[in-house]
């Protein structure tokens, strides 16, 4: 297997293609709305119309606009049909020959599509994720072939460093630097791990990438392995994503069959094996040290860093851990060059970012925009704002580790630094829009309940702190809180943030702190409405007036 073979496969795939291609979204969102049956109905309709030699119906990955699914698109830029039902199928085929389709036609020129700059998602919804040939046809695996045959490992690290790519899992650590650290560590064995344990509620970017373009991630992993000198890789996927797991399995066996993975990648002396490890529903396993313990078959509890995984990782060997989206960025950087990538986005946050837009917004789905795009563009222009004329109250980014950004900060550009300044984080890319009906204390309580349940219990601040914070928030929500509780809440949050062992605990208070910062009045309202008065005007113990009389005055 070499470049010529790749080009040959691509050519063969291209010539076998029928003149018209109808693409049906078969990613999880559309599948759950009968996507598979629609694909079958379309195939049947094609056969019935006698067009089988000219039209092919292909199942593709995520087409982005989940709220309007199931989606079907004719040709590369043809009409986009939304909310398709099986009954619409014959008319869609008839429309190819001048008929009228009964399905609702979408607008491919809507800002939702035109504002996007697809890099990670460039193949999503275009190729068939279950055929390696389909990926090779669009230039897949050429970057890997080039890297293993013509580049030195440190050269590869240098390209990634120059590109300015930063980790897309949330923290934004420079990817090139991480690679170079692992590459320079001497060890008898090294590992590459793809972190696909997308635990943030409200985030589904990684699921979509794995379901729509699994080979892209494998290619990124193989390039990373070559760069750092690893020969074994693991993809750690959430058990909640059965479709992603099955497509990944298919992709691995296809790549192995073609000699792209396994012993002698592209007939070189570089070996790379990839295995899948399925998570078992623990949010903390997204944290890298916990994830490694889980791969080793243990309880997923984190450990202190340093030593960082780059020095001592899986089974004590240096391990490179990258997020799915980070790895999906690698092949295009190698192909098109570091300068091209560095030309997109902001000075400190380069490239694009995939966001999962959901919540109270008209167009929910997956979008990819250059770093630095203002939140307003994403939420109002692309997302179409709150349905039925409601007003955006806040945008929640970063899941349970992030914060709520209030509507008056919507002009903030989305990059690592700007979001951090607002007390939130980029996170993995979940973006939940909230409207005036959402109570922020309730939202903070929701996230704290999540963190409380998901705390692994290893360190005390997180194990006990999250429970206490949740208790206070519940008390406040029930209207039984005092002003003192709000102060205790703040102190507790600071303590948990500063003393917890891992990222889960350190970031768990973020939703509370950010809502306290921007929506303090909602906390206050819960206290003043029904609770006892603030400590300042409440007599201290033994200071005279009994509490009962004061309550009476309050009424």
């Amino acid at each position, binding site marked *: 297997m070499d470049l010529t073979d790749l080009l040959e496969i691509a050519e063969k795939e291209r010539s076998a293609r029928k003149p018209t291609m109808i693409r049906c979204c078969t990613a*999880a*969102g559309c*599948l*759950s*709305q009968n996507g598979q049956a629609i694909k079958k109905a379309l195939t049947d309709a094609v056969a019935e119309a006698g067009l089988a030699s000219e039209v092919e119906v292909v199942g593709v990955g995520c087409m982005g606009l*989940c*709220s309007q*699914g199931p989606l079907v698109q004719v040709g590369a830029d043809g009409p986009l049909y939304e909310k398709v039902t099986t009954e619409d199928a014959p008319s869609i085929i008839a429309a190819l020959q001048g008929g009228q389709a009964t399905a609702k036609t979408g607008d491919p020129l809507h800002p939702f599509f035109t504002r996007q700059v697809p890099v990670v998602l460039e193949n999503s919804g275009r190729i068939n994720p279950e055929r390696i040939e389909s990926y090779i046809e669009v230039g897949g695996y050429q970057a890997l072939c080039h890297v293993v045959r013509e580049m030195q490992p440190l050269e590869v690290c240098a390209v990634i460093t120059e590109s300015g790519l930063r980790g897309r899992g949330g923290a934004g650590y420079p990817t090139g630097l991480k690679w170079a650290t692992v590459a320079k560590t001497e060890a008898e064995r090294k590992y590459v791990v793809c972190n696909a344990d*997308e*635990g*943030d*509620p*409200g*985030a*589904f970017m990684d*699921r*979509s990438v794995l379901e729509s373009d699994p080979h892209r991630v494998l290619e990124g992993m193989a390039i990373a392995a070559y760069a750092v000198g690893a020969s074994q890789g693991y993809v750690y996927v*959430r*058990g*909640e*994503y059965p479709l992603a797991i099955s497509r990944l399995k298919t992709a691995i066996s296809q790549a192995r069959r073609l000699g792209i993975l396994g012993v002698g990648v592209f007939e070189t002396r570089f070996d790379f094996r990839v295995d899948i*490890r*399925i*998570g*078992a*529903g*623990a*949010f903390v396993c997204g944290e890298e040290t916990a994830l490694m313990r*889980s*791969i*080793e*078959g*243990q*309880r*997923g509890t984190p450990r202190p860093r340093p030593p960082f995984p780059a020095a001592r990782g899986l089974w004590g060997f240096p391990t490179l851990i990258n997020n799915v989206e980070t790895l999906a960025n690698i092949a295009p950087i190698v192909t098109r060059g570091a300068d091209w990538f560095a030309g997109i986005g902001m000075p400190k946050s380069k490239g694009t970012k995939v966001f*999962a837009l*959901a*919540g*109270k917004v008209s167009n*929910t*789905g*997956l979008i990819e925009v250059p770093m630095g795009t203002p939140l307003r563009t994403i939420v109002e222009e692309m997302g179409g704002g709150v349905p039925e004329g409601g007003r955006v109250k806040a945008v*929640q980014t970063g*899941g349970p580790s992030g914060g709520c950004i209030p509507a008056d900060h919507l002009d903030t550009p989305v990059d690592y630094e700007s979001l951090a300044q607002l007390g939130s984080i980029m996170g993995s890319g*979940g973006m*939940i829009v*909230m409207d005036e009906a*959402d109570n922020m204390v309730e*939202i903070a309580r*929701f*996230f704290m309940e*999540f963190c409380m349940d*998901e705390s*692994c219990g290893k360190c005390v601040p997180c194990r006990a702190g999250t429970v206490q914070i949740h208790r206070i928030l519940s008390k406040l929500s029930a209207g039984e809180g005092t002003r003192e509780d709000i102060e205790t809440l703040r102190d507790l949050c600071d303590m948990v943030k500063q003393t917890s062992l891992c990222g889960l605990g350190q970031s768990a208070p973020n939703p509370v702190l950010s809502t306290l910062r921007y929506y303090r009045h909602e906390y206050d309202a819960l206290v003043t409405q029904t609770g006892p008065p603030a400590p300042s005007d409440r007599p201290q113990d033994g200071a005279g007036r009994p509490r009962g009389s004061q309550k009476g005055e309050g009424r």
Partner: protein
Amino acid sequence: MSTVASKEPESPPRPAPRAHPSGDNRFKMLEATMKRHQYQADALIEVLHTAQELFGFLETDLLLYVAHSLKVPPSRVFGVATFYHFFSLKPQGDHTCVICMGTACYVKGAANLVSTVEGLCGVKLGETTADGKVSLLAARCLGACGIAPAVVLDGDVFGNTAAEGLHERVKGWLS
């Protein structure tokens, strides 16, 4: 010391997948999975996944069997099985209703769905009805946020769920 011992030839080679004394064929399949992983302790989570798939839930005897086969202390197997939400140590009902409690589903009214089914079944989320017909479960996030609120009914994902529709479906199971 233990490494030396394991290298000694006197330890007999492991036999091919053994039949379980109970004659239950599912043990054979579990044994095959463990064999594929060469009885490595690292494969514990994978093995538990298979065990749960085969048996529906992880009984204490099953956990002991896995511990014995992989040569790890039962405490570790029990520790892992209880740590991860995916593993269930109690039998599930004939039907399962999983309600996604991710952020997107939450702001789109998942709590309402929860109270609907809880009221209908008379049990809380995470419990099974007394007659063993329906199990109510919560999911952290199905990643189907674009079609929130989402539920999984007997393994099939449904998006944009309305409380009425869910009520009908679960009521059908209970009768």
